[in-house]
């Protein structure tokens, strides 16, 4: 009953890339069940390098779960996620995720950014340089010695982005990163996401904010009741979505 959507260049997947790219990643027939309920229902999708993808859908559609399945934080009940890279450590190390509520360690802002780099075994001198660079680019340099937990909500989320940016990931997942932020902080977060994309990071972002999706999306994946109903270029999606549910969602009429 699920809709399988393999867009862009399905031919490229017949022979998974043997280069050193993380992408494409291919999800095949993902099903996730918890407590007897099917929360992700037969989702198949291919993510090629390049565009900024926004995952849209009402609450409970399974957007966050899909991100966690792709990122490897949870295991699918059925189905698989296959990366172009073979080595599991490389796959983990070349992607990052920013959560709705940033989890910052009880140490300074700079030490928070440095933590991820240390886990990857980066030498000290290089770490210090990288930390200074991302704190500068995210406008957090003046907070670098301050305890991260004392920053404001918006600054905390920017720091979470800085921590992800420092890793220079090929792919960044964002799970409603601006859900509880004020307009200025939302704009700042979106600017960082854009800058990371300009730096070559593939963006996959969950939101239920249609305005944000319009600002950021090159393509939209629309989810509803655990199923992926469409994966459409943004321009097409906002003018003439393929599914009736997406059209209703855009009109603010979706009832579920």
């Amino acid at each position, binding site marked *: 009953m699920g809709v399988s959507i393999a867009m862009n260049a399905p031919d490229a997947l017949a022979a998974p890339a043997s280069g050193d790219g993380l992408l494409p990643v291919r999800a095949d027939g993902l099903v996730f069940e918890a407590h007897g309920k099917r929360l992700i229902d037969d989702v198949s999708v291919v993510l090629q390098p390049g565009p900024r993808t926004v995952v849209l859908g009402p609450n409970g559609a399974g957007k966050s779960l899909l991100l966690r399945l792709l990122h490897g934080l949870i295991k699918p009940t059925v189905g698989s996620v296959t990366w172009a890279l073979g080595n599991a450590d490389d796959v983990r190390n070349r992607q990052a995720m920013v959560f709705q509520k940033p989890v910052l360690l009880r140490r300074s802002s700079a030490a928070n950014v440095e933590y991820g780099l240390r886990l990857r075994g980066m030498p000290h001198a290089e770490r210090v340089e990288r930390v200074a660079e991302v704190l500068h680019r995210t406008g957090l340099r003046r907070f670098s010695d301050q305890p991260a*937990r004392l920053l404001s909500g918006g600054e905390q989320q920017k720091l979470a982005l800085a921590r992800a940016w420092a890793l220079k990931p090929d792919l960044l997942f964002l799970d409603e990163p601006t859900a509880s932020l004020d307009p200025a902080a939302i704009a700042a977060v979106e600017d960082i996401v854009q800058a990371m994309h300009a730096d070559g990071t593939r963006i996959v972002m969950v939101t239920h904010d249609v305005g944000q999706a319009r600002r950021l999306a090159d393509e939209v994946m629309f989810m509803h009741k655990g199923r992926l109903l469409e994966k459409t270029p943004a321009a097409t999606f906002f003018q003439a979505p393929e599914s009736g549910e997406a059209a209703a969602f855009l009109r603010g009429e979706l009832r579920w």
Partner: protein
Amino acid sequence: MHDLALAFITAVQLLLSFDPALVEIVLLSLRVSLTAVGLAALIGLPIGAAVALFRFPGRGALIVLLNALMGLPPVVVGLVVYLFLSRSGPLGVFGLLFTPTAMVIAQSILVTPIIAALTRQVVEDLWAEYSEQLRSLGAGPMRAVPALLHDARFTLVTAVLAGFGRASAEVGAVMIVGGNIDHVTRMMTTAIALEVSKGDLALALGLGIVLIVLSLSVNAATYIVKQRAERRWA
């Protein structure tokens, strides 16, 4: 009432006189209990964190066991350590019985389960909050242990203090393995027990008050340091 008043006067006199015999007992008590708590923390913190983070067969039983061991009877621990350390025991060759080292060993055994059980609970709760973020950054349970212990440090201080309370207050274990030998293994609690059996209740109570003041001081000092650090790091 008369005994109590007399005890207070005795306690004040004891404290003011800086009686060298009392100072010796106080210092030995502190040395033994703090060393025991230090050792127990070195063992209990990683064990508690490991039980919190890893899933293995028998984990539930181990948690129940750890929680139950918090209530280990000191006399039983003292007796078992005594049997191990006595001349004919498996560790008899080291000649540790009736030394401060024997008391440290016995108290470490009493305190380790307390620190491990409380650490397990604290770290498990923190891991629930941190798990996704740390795993996303590339830290599996093993590499997350130092970060979690570090971030739980303010709560874990309380766990360690609970252990210190246990060590400084118990008499059964140190009495058996230490023997309450004057100038060698006489602690606050064993001295109190001795004075009670000799019938000098005022002196016993006076020593008791000194012990409570000591325990209060350690806890107060820890509280102040903790408050300062907490305000600094939120």
